[in-house]
């Protein structure tokens, strides 16, 4: 059986279908009394059973536990993915989201039977309003990108109701924006217009001025931007955009850098999405489920998705769907509800004071990384940064031929997940570090020492860095072959 062992306790685990053998099962359902499907026409029935694997519960559990052991996760170690933000996910949040009162309720139960869920959603909306300064919040969007779509749809609705929908189609997007922004713009029938950030890494009013006309629908600004820099002219830019009849969308993905310090509504922002995993410590699940609540001004509130949760004078909660100007729905029910429970638990544990402290420690950690590494790596723009810092491989590559990707892969050998690489696109060979507030000084110092070790390896033994990783379960993976061969599902081996 040694073929299934890679090294030590790490298993080489085949696709689950190869572990299957006929007649085994991992369920405990009683045998159905009546097997014929009376009333269903024969040609409606399935000809061939789906090729699901056949295994006992023990084998299924072992298979997935073994797979899990191939993953790096926040509970294994630091995950300094800039702009993606991976902070520790408190255990109490999971426990609260797993309460039967939340997990066993049908989404169409009458309001009187889900008072607890409605109260939780109402209170979470209120808490998000408090910390952002917005008038209203919807919790429906399933992820940040879904929030972008929703916020822009509110703007589109407002423009349509003014009778300007045919003309106001341009949405300004700075080059420091998140990658999803242009796609979200197109999904709303708008046209993205790229504008260029100033030399200091912030957007200047002059970049916006040429676009202030009756074709302008909105500006979509990530703040702090993807260089980790606060957009200090946003307030003035908001006034300019409003003066031209446009709206301001703020991508709030990086809200964790300013929570408790700045309320986006005070900057003239009309609508913004939050990413609950980034700011409010909900798990990322290897890609989801996330949640992307959207806040907006009183002007845009009538267009929010339905149903809305209202509080009655008697302190009861009820759902209201009859809003004439709503954009409709972006989720069939209430969004990723179990994620909402986690975020609300986190907010209640921290209180306003705790959330502010979280921001401060996140910014402290990022600046500590920066000051320890600024002489080893090149900082992309030499101005103050908040929650993350972006380095470039410009100088390293010139000197050694070792690239950001090589340094990233070599980090894996030392047990660190690499930072975000090659983003933002405006920085050549970007190496974007965001430690978050949940890393200790010692862990940060270990990370920094490791990066320094790798950079010195790049000078003395560049091939070693270029060939990394060596100690991971699999070596560097061939992405070109994956795209060319397109093996997108398991198929039985040909006899």
């Amino acid at each position: 059986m040694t073929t299934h062992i890679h090294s030590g306790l790490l298993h080489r685990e085949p696709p689950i279908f190869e572990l299957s053998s006929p007649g085994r099962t991992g369920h405990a359902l009683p045998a159905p009394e009546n097997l014929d499907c009376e009333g269903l026409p024969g040609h409606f029935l399935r000809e061939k059973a789906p090729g699901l694997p056949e295994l006992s519960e023990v084998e299924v559990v072992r298979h997935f536990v073994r797979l899990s052991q191939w993953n790096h996760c926040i509970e294994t170690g630091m995950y300094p993915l800039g702009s993606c933000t991976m902070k520790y996910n408190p255990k109490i949040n999971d426990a609260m989201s797993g309460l039967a009162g939340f997990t066993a309720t049908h989404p169409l139960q009458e309001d009187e039977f889900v008072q607890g869920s409605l109260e939780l959603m109402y209170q979470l909306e209120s808490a998000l309003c408090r910390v952002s300064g917005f008038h209203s919040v919807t919790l429906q969007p399933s992820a940040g990108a879904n929030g972008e779509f929703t916020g822009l749809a509110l703007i589109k609705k407002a423009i349509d109701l003014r009778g300007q929908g045919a003309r106001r189609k341009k949405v300004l997007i700075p080059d420091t924006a998140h990658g999803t922004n242009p796609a979200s713009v197109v999904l709303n029938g708008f046209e993205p217009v790229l504008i260029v950030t100033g030399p200091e890494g912030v957007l200047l009013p002059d970049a916006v001025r040429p676009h202030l006309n009756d074709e302008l629908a909105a500006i979509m600004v990530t703040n702090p931007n993807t260089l980790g820099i606060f957009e200090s002219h946003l307030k003035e830019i908001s006034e300019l955009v409003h003066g031209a009849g446009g709206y301001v969308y703020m991508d709030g993905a990086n809200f964790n850098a300013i929570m408790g310090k700045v309320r986006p509504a005070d900057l003239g922002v009309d609508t913004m999405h939050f990413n609950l995993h980034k700011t409010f410590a909900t798990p990322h699940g290897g890609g989801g489920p996330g949640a992307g609540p959207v806040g907006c001004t009183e002007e845009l509130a009538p267009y929010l998705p339905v149903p809305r949760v209202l509080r009655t004078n008697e302190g009861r909660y009820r759902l209201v769907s009859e809003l004439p100007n709503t954009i409709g729905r972006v989720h069939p029910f209430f969004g990723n509800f179990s994620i909402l429970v986690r975020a609300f638990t986190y907010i209640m544990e921290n209180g306003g004071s705790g959330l502010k402290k979280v921001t401060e420690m996140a910014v402290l950690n990022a600046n500590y990384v920066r000051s320890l590494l600024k002489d080893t790596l090149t900082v992309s723009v030499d101005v103050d940064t908040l929650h993350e810092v972006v380095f470039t491989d410009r100088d390293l590559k010139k000197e050694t031929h070792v690239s950001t990707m090589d340094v990233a892969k070599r980090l894996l050998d030392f047990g660190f997940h690499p930072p975000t690489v090659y983003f933002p696109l405006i920085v050549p060979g970007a190496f974007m570090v965001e430690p978050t507030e949940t890393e200790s000084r010692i862990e940060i110092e270990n990370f920094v020492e490791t990066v320094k070790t790798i950079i010195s390896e790049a000078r003395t033994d560049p091939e070693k860095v270029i060939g990394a990783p060596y100690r991971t379960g699999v070596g560097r993976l061939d992405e070109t072959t994956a795209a060319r061969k397109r093996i997108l599902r398991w198929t039985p081996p040909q006899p």
Partner: protein
Amino acid sequence: MRYLPHSPHDIQHMLKTIGVEDVEELFRSIPRDQRTEKPDESPGLPECQLRRYIEGLSSKNKVFCVMLASAGAPFHAVPKAVETIIGRSEFQTAYTPYQPEVSQGTLQAVFEFQTIVTELMGLDVSNASLYDGASAVGEALLLALRVHKGKRRSVWVSEGLHPHAQTVIRTMLHAFGEVEIRWLPLDGKTGATLLPGPVTSDVAAVAVGYPNFLGVVEDVAAVAVAARQGGALSIVSVSDPSHLAVLASPGQLGVDIAVGEGMGISGTGGMGGPGLGLMAVRDEYVKQMPGRIVGQTVDSRGNPGYVLTLATREQHIRREKATSNICSNQALVALAFTVHMSLLGPSGLKDMAVLSRNRAMELRRGLLEIPGVCELVSGPVMNEFALVFPKNAEGLRAHMADNGIFFGVPLGRFYPDKPEYKEAILLSATETACRDDISHTILLAKEFYREGK
């Protein structure tokens, strides 16, 4: 704060290294007049009080012992092993697998998920999942519009899709703009979608529910043929993937794009989500697929491994020309789905589907014995069906609720302008109900009407 590993000494040391006086100085790039004037300084709750507060909220919800409603959110019996696996830190607290060398667990699990979805749907390619079944229909319609490169600007969508999904679709397509949705009504007698005639040359896709919102299993093969004859793509939305152990796969019926809602299998449908949007397509449409896709490849040592692939469709590469703005999936929910499907195997899935149908048919048979109760529509069903009650359907539901039974969903809530739906209830049963639950429910209903309520 227990999640902040900074001692006062650490903070001082770090500030000194950075070269600032205090933490406030780190925020000097934010102009003073843009700062929050009065930050919220409210304290947090310690864990014991936090627990009491949130548990208090959860206990204000009513948990029914017997669930006789699906209506887009079916409840199946999910083994504890599923929760155990998705609760593992390595899956739950990992990020999107951008560094495949340390994410093979997530990637291989998604590859297995994609395989299971293609097997169920009988189609060639699945993605790594979408947000939910409703937005998956919207994405499928946008996919069909892209396939026709803007030459066909209308879609035919059945009114047999879940009413909330209809709203999601309307929101998505209205935002996208310049697309006409023609809503196809249901036949009042059979409950199946009525095609208005041959599919015309302006139609990019025809979408129907499978089964539809009233529980009716429609003649999907006929819809697929009609779509194909008119040069349009056919889309079906599967309301409960367990049905596909019994019902013909969409691929077998000639469908081009199959989407669905998987949260009933993943067991995450409390309060309606996290959902799990399924999507599978014929091979020729893979380049127009939205969402993440995992592919198999080899590593530098010649071993098999998995990576995110076909990224040229996606927003971070293609920017405004991307197939969608989606940059995540419902990975953990997809994992739960994969684990549960692996535990069930083909025989377990079939048992689940057949048991659910047996329970539903017993319930329907028993209720139809009550004088004045009749079917709303006559089409064939799986485990969901609509009955019209002689009077006071709301009173009956309240009586059931008093007995711990969630007795379906009143259809009048969704169709206030249809008088024939006023006393109609959409009911469903799954294997979570036992025979005694069903007979008890029937008895309660008979008593209710015998007592003339």
